[in-house]
């Protein structure tokens, strides 16, 4: 292929590239695929994507030259599988190698996608991951078990889950990892537990496993990774809808029906349908209730009281109010939620969690230990804010060793244990930045303290060491940067730089209301 054509290929988008390659004569196409393997790899061009769209005559012509092309066995099988039906019928497979014959025999749908069949020998699918898309949400237990075997053979096959009629893609290996985790949670729930007890266990397990996507609202945010059911479990990150989807899927397994509802703040959560809740007075109420798994994530991760667990619509709306009295409207949806009239009062919530071992006999949640430890540290280091801070970090890391990778939950916990007055603070900021050398711009939690006693200190949550690491100001500023979107919200002023405060807090909430989160 001459350099002019190569230049045009380089400049074109993916569809354009494929169209240009399909227009080549078959001999030139064969040469291109043999001589430009690196280019194809870089541009994510699969040979079958070119050949599947050729007309029957050209497909047959290409087949006659297939063995002369320097292609892998999998690439050849992909080409054979995606041939037009009439071309497949014209091939005599009796003398072909088994790998080729089985590829030709696999039925495909329009577009070359394989029609997945449970009763087929999955070995025949090996290497054809790119051609397989399965939607396994409604599989029976037997089908799930069988599908797990497939996942070992085709780990990169596409597995779809739906959310608001949009399909989100996980890989087969993520499906397997997700399903194994789900089974480890559900299979270990005592069968004698009531419906409410089972829901409590599942909500807690989700909080321990998943954290809110820490890049949400930034230029580094990738929505499709945060809404795909099994990817959310596998990666441990999800946005509100994605987490709600995980919980909805798991609740369905224990026979609890639910609906994902969006509030006016574009926030997604669950309405549980016709559930039974035990009250502290001995009564049981039955009806619809609200469970917001994302607003419970930090609470569950750090052993706090999950106060968004089975609440009435009235309570959910109360929870929408900020400390400044501003209504975030996160759960406002009168039409969908007017029938969510049952909920657990605080004592009933404590009793329920005591009954499943998630709170102690007095109904106290494990966060109590961390808060008490934090109070002791405040007393011990009353005159030394920097040492106070370091010991608070240590206590936090002991309570949650994975704190650096559950960024948003960690930020919530830091709000509890860091005491502005005890730190003698002029200013204390807990927020996110990214490492300038990280092209993916992953979020890093940092704490900036400007203390009347110890001056300015910078710490960041180091994923490698699992500790908060202190850096001199200059080094911190050289290494980390704020996300563009965060800077926009703050009028271009970094968190550690002086800025007006309350106004920004309010406008920041207003900004987020327009986004799908």
């Amino acid at each position, binding site marked *: 292929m001459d350099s002019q054509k190569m230049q045009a290929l380089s400049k074109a988008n993916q569809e354009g590239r494929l169209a240009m390659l399909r227009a080549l004569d078959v001999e030139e196409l064969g040469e291109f695929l043999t001589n430009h393997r690196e280019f194809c790899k870089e541009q994510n061009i699969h040979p079958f994507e070119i050949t599947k769209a050729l007309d029957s005559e050209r497909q047959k012509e290409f087949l006659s030259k297939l063995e002369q092309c320097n292609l892998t066995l999998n690439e050849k099988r992909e080409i054979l599988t995606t041939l037009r039906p009439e071309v497949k019928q014209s091939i005599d497979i009796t003398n072909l190698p088994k790998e080729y014959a089985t590829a030709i025999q696999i039925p495909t749908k329009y577009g070359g996608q394989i029609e997945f069949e449970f009763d087929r020998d999955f070995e025949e699918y090996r290497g054809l991951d790119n051609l397989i898309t399965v939607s396994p949400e409604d599989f029976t237990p037997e089908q799930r078990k069988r599908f797990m075997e497939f996942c070992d053979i085709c780990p990169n096959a596409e597995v779809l889950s739906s959310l608001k009629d949009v399909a989100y893609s996980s890989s087969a290996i993520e499906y397997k990892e997700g399903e194994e985790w789900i089974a480890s949670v559900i299979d270990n729930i005592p069968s004698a537990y009531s419906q409410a007890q089972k829901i409590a266990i599942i909500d807690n397990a989700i909080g321990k496993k998943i954290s809110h996507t820490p890049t949400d609202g930034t230029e580094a945010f990738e929505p499709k990774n945060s809404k795909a059911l099994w990817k959310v479990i596998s990666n441990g990150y999800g946005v509100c809808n994605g987490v709600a989807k995980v919980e909805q899927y798991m609740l369905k397994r224990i026979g609890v029906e639910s609906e994902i509802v969006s509030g006016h703040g574009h926030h997604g959560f669950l309405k549980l349908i016709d559930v039974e809740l035990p009250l502290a007075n001995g009564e049981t109420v039955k009806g619809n209730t609200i469970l917001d798994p*994302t607003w419970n994530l930090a609470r569950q991760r750090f052993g706090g009281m999950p106060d968004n667990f089975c609440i009435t619509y009235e309570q959910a709306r109360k929870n929408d109010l900020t400390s400044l009295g501003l209504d975030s409207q996160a759960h406002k949806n009168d039409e969908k939620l007017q029938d969510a009239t049952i909920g657990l009062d605080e004592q009933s919530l404590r009793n329920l969690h005591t009954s499943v071992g998630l709170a102690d006999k007095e109904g106290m949640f494990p966060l109590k230990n961390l808060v008490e430890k934090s109070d002791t540290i405040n007393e011990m280091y009353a005159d030394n804010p920097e040492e106070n801070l370091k010991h608070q970090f240590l206590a936090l890391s002991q309570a949650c060793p994975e704190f650096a990778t559950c960024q948003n939950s960690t930020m919530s916990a830091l709000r509890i244990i860091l005491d502005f007055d005890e730190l003698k603070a002029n200013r204390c900021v807990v927020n996110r930045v990214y490492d300038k050398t990280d092209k993916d711009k992953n979020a890093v939690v940092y704490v900036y303290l400007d203390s009347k006693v110890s001056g300015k200190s910078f710490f960041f949550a180091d994923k490698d060491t699992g500790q908060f690491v202190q850096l001199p100001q200059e080094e911190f500023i050289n290494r980390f940067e704020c996300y563009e979107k965060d800077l926009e919200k703050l009028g271009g002023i970094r968190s550690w730089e002086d800025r007006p405060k309350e106004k920004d807090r309010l406008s920041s909430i207003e900004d987020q209301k327009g986004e799908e989160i």
Partner: protein
Amino acid sequence: MNVIERIMSFIKKFFNKQEEIKMIEAPERVTNIKEKEDFFSSIKVFRPIQIENNEIETLICIGDGLGIQKDMKY
């Protein structure tokens, strides 16, 4: 200010006397002291006071309620 202006000012104040500010009273039928206090509390208007840098500042995220929800309890 000359003498004439002072006299004019006095006359104006005399004729334009403002009404005294009357405090809202609890309904007469409320006799219980606690109920009275509750009544006064219920009509108070709370205005958020903007105090600079008096709390831990965090990210605001509607997705998980960070910076919106009340602090975790145990």
